[in-house]
């Protein structure tokens, strides 16, 4: 197990190396540059000023040379300075990670708390009426656009101060109650859609599992319905749900851009969005590397959870 984890962690190196090359060259293919955005359409500069500006904005050397220089600095832990704000890149990104982490955990928790029980209930086919209700709710949850739901929430809750962040976000470490209150609505906006997805996966998976022979055996053995469903069926049905949850976690940790924009939350999504708008290369490169790392780690954790839940799965392929 330990060797397996180490092997997976080592795989980070070639992944990050590949990602770094792709992002560095790809992002410079987009028309427009940070220097151009800075100058806009109003600013005049003399030729000497332009030379200095090109040096400051890192446009004075060929791209491969710039890449090697950047890589060298990264390996020493220096992620450079934002072209937009002049602030060091890494501290700014890391300071937003806790918010993205909180939002992800809360959204996922809400989604699982709503989705799994709903999924189980709707798979039991108690009566066709409640089945239809569940399916309709599920469909609504899938189809409601996140930004629309978020905008509605902002309008509806604008008068209840403290529920909408409005640019006065307070960290958990500073005031946990107010922090959680502020993140409840954003998490709900994300969680509803996610809950619908999880509900469907759970329901379909449960339906399949409930047909299995061992379930019939368990019932025949006289076990209570609750034990049959929770101990025997759910444990087997849960695997696809873990996959979906894992994937969405990785995605959310990269920043829920739309939700952050509408609720004015200072998360990684907004940082990435504005960095791309303004062609802030150092920030874009650093965030992409961070998201790649997060994805690899989340995948690893997902696989480990798999192995814990399903004893049939053996992680290391040595020793058959």
């Amino acid at each position, binding site marked *: 197990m330990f060797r397996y984890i180490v092997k997976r962690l080592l795989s980070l190196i070639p992944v990050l190396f590949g990602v770094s090359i792709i992002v560095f060259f790809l992002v410079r293919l*987009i028309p427009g540059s940070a220097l151009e955005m800075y*100058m806009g359409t109003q600013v005049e500069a003399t030729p000497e*000023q332009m030379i200095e500006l090109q040096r400051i904005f890192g446009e004075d050397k060929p791209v491969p040379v710039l890449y090697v220089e950047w890589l060298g600095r990264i390996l020493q832990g220096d992620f450079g300075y934002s072209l937009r*704000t002049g602030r060091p890149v890494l501290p700014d990104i890391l300071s937003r990670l806790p918010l993205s982490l909180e939002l992800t955990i809360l959204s996922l928790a809400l989604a699982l708390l709503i989705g799994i029980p709903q999924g189980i209930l709707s798979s039991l086919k108690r009566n066709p009426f409640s089945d239809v209700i569940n399916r309709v709710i599920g469909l609504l949850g899938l189809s409601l656009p996140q930004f629309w739901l978020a*905008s509605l929430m902002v309008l509806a809750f604008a008068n209840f*101060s403290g529920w909408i962040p*409005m640019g006065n976000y307070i960290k958990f470490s500073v005031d946990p109650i107010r922090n959680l209150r502020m993140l409840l609505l954003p998490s709900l906006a994300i969680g509803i859609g996610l809950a619908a997805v999880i509900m469907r996966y759970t329901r379909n998976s449960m339906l399949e599992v409930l047909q299995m022979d061992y379930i019939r055996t368990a019932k025949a053995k006289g076990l209570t319905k609750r034990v049959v469903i929770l101990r025997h069926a759910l444990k087997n049905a849960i695997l696809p749900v873990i996959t979906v949850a894992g994937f969405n976690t990785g995605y959310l940790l990269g920043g829920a851009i739309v939700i952050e924009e*509408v609720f*004015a939350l200072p998360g990684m999504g907004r940082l990435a969005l504005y960095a791309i708008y303004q062609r802030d290369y150092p920030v874009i490169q650093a965030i992409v590397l961070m998201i790649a790392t997060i994805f690899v780690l989340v995948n690893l954790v997902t696989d480990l959870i798999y192995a814990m839940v399903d004893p049939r799965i053996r992680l290391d392929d040595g020793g058959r």
Partner: protein
Amino acid sequence: MKRPSIMLIALLAVTLFGAAGAFAAPAAQAVLTIGVDQEAVGIDPHIVTAFSSMRRIDLMYNRLVRLDDNFVVVPDLAESWEVPNNVTYIFHLRKGVKFHNGRELTADDVQYSLQRILDPKTASPGRSYVSLITSIDVVDRYTVKLNLSAPLASLLDGLTSNNCSIVAKEAVEANGNLQKTDAGTGPFMLQDWIPDNSMTLVKNASYFEKGAPYLDKVIFRVIPEQASLLAGVKSGDIDLATISDGATIRQASKDSKVVVMSKPGLNMRIFSFNTTKKPFDDVRVRQALAMTLNRSEILGIAEFGMGKPTGPVPVAATQWAVPVAKLPYASPDIAKAKKLLAEAGYPKGFSFKITCSATYEGGLAVAQVAQEELKKIGVTAELEVVEWGVYIDKWVKRDFETMIELRGGSGEPDRFLYRTFYSTGGVNNFLFKDAEVDKYLDLGRTQTVLADRKASYNKLQTLLTEKAPAIFLYCPNENQVMGKQVSGFKLVGNGSLFYVTFTKVKR
């Protein structure tokens, strides 16, 4: 009945007085919360270009002179000045002005700041406003002399720019630059800055304006969505919000809970031509389009009527702007336009591209209305809608046929017109070269008698409208939405938040 004991009475009295004492506690702080849709991109006044940064600098710094709400140059750090000849300016500074670090401001600081702006290594956008300064002399502790290489009539106006703020030398030397540091003398001081969230400024108790500022604290909150900004003002979460979206302003005007302040600004909406690309290298074609576009209609549809038609000088600069009605092509003349096109060799019209962007500055709505209007003369416009970064790139590379732009005009005509329309002007993306226009631009810049300058700029406005390197459409309104608790705020057409200095909040 037993008489209440003395002790009990004493206890009661103490309690009551104690309670009264609690109620007489220090008055609550006067705090103004401002909602903005963009985070400041650094706050070094000599380096930044973004409007969002300028709004913070409005409150943290002073310049030698500033603009009042009628675009008149009035004293700021300089209480008076003399112009003995048109290449020499002598400024007399206020005494006892303190930087936020406690040190008194002297002529040395003015010299240092201007030198930093002129230094190519700083690459300051403010340099072009004062580029003709050859030397800055410190005459005495409160007097500074500027020597120019040639006359520059717009110098005073240029010195009102935030890019020409006066900074404390020791702060620059300690930090390399002022992107995160406050080194000013302004009414408010930087206390706290959480990027993409909020910036907190506190009152400068030793500000040189007696009694001001009235507020104890100003907090900037970054809220990207226009609808969320309005919701914030309605609920009282924020007191003042800068809203640019026409539809949201219209909603706000109908709401009795909020106050909307609106007036034509210095920004100008123009339809730009690349005068080197066919058929726009022929002035008759440009004139034909200028005769077709209907300013009021475009203004009505694209900005919900919130603005005023303009010529080459922003209409709000009443000292210099020739009324639109007195300029050529004041109203559409379709028949004449068709005739001109035929003369130029396009009797059946032609087709071309309009480059625009979905952002506010990129003017997509304007392009759509223009597209419709141009059909009347048989001209087919294809919209090239691009992302903002791509738009800027095309602008820089002059890779466009026509473009919808939002330019920052100025109350002083030379400051905007020279760089924009001079044949070697720094932001002349039209690639427009005209000897007559150059001549009047040079004259207007160097003439010192007001009547002469007015004559030159009157002629220039007619020339520019006739030769049409761009079609001058309108100046959109500057808007601020605020709750009823805010008083004392005045709009300045360039978006400046200076009047927060005199603003009060009543809760």
